[in-house]
């Protein structure tokens, strides 16, 4: 079996918040099920591999985000064609913003994004920082994470990843809590503001991405319970039980 290829895009630029953990968790959860997996780190000065199965874009500081988007412009065709053949793209925070039409730069100026999805990110009045609880229809239990961003993202009609139960998500406090959403789902692109890293705190989300590439997954073997224990503990810490399903 060919190894599952997990491509970390620009880890030296978009890795401020332990984003590398998302790649490690994907590889780990594949391997424990007997699926060989490799992690490929692609710095900004190297071409994007065309053979990847899951591509990851992480979070980063303003300037790093701009350097990353500049480097990615020339890889836009590659990125488009790998998604067309079924590869998955998982983007977090700065990575989410990069995919859209535009996002705010260092002093609020408008930077052109990759335009892969019709979303627009604008600077908010303050940073949204803290734990997040998100209900997504994709999963029975809510997702948790930690957000830390100034940008506010308008989805332009795209579907969000889920509804925000605690925290700011795409829109922050300017939007009523019952209308607040996080992230986006568009074809083979899944994006969120959740750090944590999100896939470490939400094994269901990691498995969701894996299954979109390799099909139905067997259960993880014994010895992996710690992932679920962590997810459960975080949900409880955020009072997930109070929100029902």
């Amino acid at each position, binding site marked *: 079996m060919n190894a599952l290829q997990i491509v970390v895009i620009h880890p030296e630029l978009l890795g*401020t918040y332990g984003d590398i953990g998302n790649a490690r968790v994907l590889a780990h959860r594949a391997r424990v099920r007997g699926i060989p997996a490799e992690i490929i780190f692609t710095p900004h000065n190297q071409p994007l591999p065309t053979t990847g199965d899951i591509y990851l874009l992480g979070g980063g*500081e303003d300037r790093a985000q701009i350097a990353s988007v500049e480097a990615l412009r020339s890889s836009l065709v590659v990125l488009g064609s790998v998604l067309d053949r079924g590869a998955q793209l998982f983007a977090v925070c700065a990575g989410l913003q990069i995919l859209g039409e535009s996002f705010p730069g260092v002093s609020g100026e408008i930077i052109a994004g990759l335009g892969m999805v019709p979303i627009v990110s604008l600077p908010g009045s303050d940073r949204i920082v803290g734990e997040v609880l998100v209900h997504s229809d994709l999963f029975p239990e809510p997702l948790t994470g930690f957000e830390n961003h100034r940008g506010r993202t308008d989805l332009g009609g795209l579907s969000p990843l889920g509804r925000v139960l605690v925290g700011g998500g795409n829109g922050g406090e300017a939007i009523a809590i019952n209308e607040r959403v996080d992230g986006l789902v568009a074809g083979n692109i899944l994006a969120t503001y959740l750090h944590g890293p999100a896939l*470490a*705190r939400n094994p269901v989300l990691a498995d969701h991405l894996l299954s979109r590439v390799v099909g139905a997954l067997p259960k993880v073997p014994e010895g992996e319970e710690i992932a679920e224990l962590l997810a459960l503990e975080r949900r409880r810490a955020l009072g997930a039980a109070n929100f029902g399903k």
Partner: protein
Amino acid sequence: MARAISLLSRILRQGEGATLSGKVLLALRPRAISELTRGRRIVLVSGTNGKTSTSSMLAAMLGEKFLVGGNRTGANLDTGIAASLVSAKKCTLLIFEVDELYLPSMMEETAPELILLLNLSRDQLHRTQEVRIVARKWHEALARFPDTPVVIDASDPFLASVGRDHRPMTRMSFGKRSHLDAASCPTCGAMLDWSGAQFACQKCGLGDIPADVELGEMSAVERNHALAGYVAQYFGVQDLTKYSPRDRISTLLLGGIEIALRLVKNPSSWQEGLSSLTDEPVILVVNARGVDGLDTSWLWDVDFTPLKRRYVVITGDRKLDAAYRVHVDGIGYSLVESLSSAAMQIHRDGFTRAQALTSYTAFIDATTRVKGKR
């Protein structure tokens, strides 16, 4: 008044009383730090890691020549600094360690004679946000003190950037050292070139200024010792041979074993802690309360493989985050409810000593226990 506050603080039995008297003082006299430091010799020490241990190494060295005062317990916000001034009337030199975000305001308040900057890297991302913002604020602050001598570790690209156009500047260098946050230039944002003997920015020239003192690669505590030694010499203490590098390690007797506690609080200090482990069992205590940083994502920026084939026990508020992290690195561990239960388990298994890497709040809890109960 200062004495009255000190007395009040003691009456209220605030344990270490590290900040309460400072809070009271600043509430009554908002300019107290400025008033109580006017005309005195002041050294400020700041940086992401090593502030407390470096300030105490420096205090020991300078203690030969001066009656040294300052905040020696890690309380490094304005309140901790104010509190230390309450009882520092007779001191002839004051060394303050200062939180990174408080450095600019403490410079204004104390008009220091010298500033020592140790390093700058990601830390408590929920609070300090981006390390580049801190660097920019420091750079702006130095511009307001163009004649104040500053000593930096110039192998840290962020400090090289902070001090790039400051004149009375001593640059010490310790070989090439990779930096998690410095893929791109802290000054201009261009990609840094790390292929040479030292980092270099082809666009703005960061890294081009030669170091004043060139030393080889060494551990963080040795670097800080060398930086402190330079400052001590600046103040006229020449013979430093009897002072050796000292880390912020406290020893605790608990559950029948002796635990060497080491404070670790961000990726670079965790990595440093993991690289200096002895053969004894290892306890990880991971909290995420306020000063620890609320976001535990950084666990994934640390390479935990030095824990392989060791006896590892994990505790703390966020033990599950840490446990899953090390699990993915293929490391076996056991989970326990508290530092005491960790000690008891290790004792039961026949060991007499252990080493603990602890988050800030856990370190304070444990070391306060040492002082309070023994």
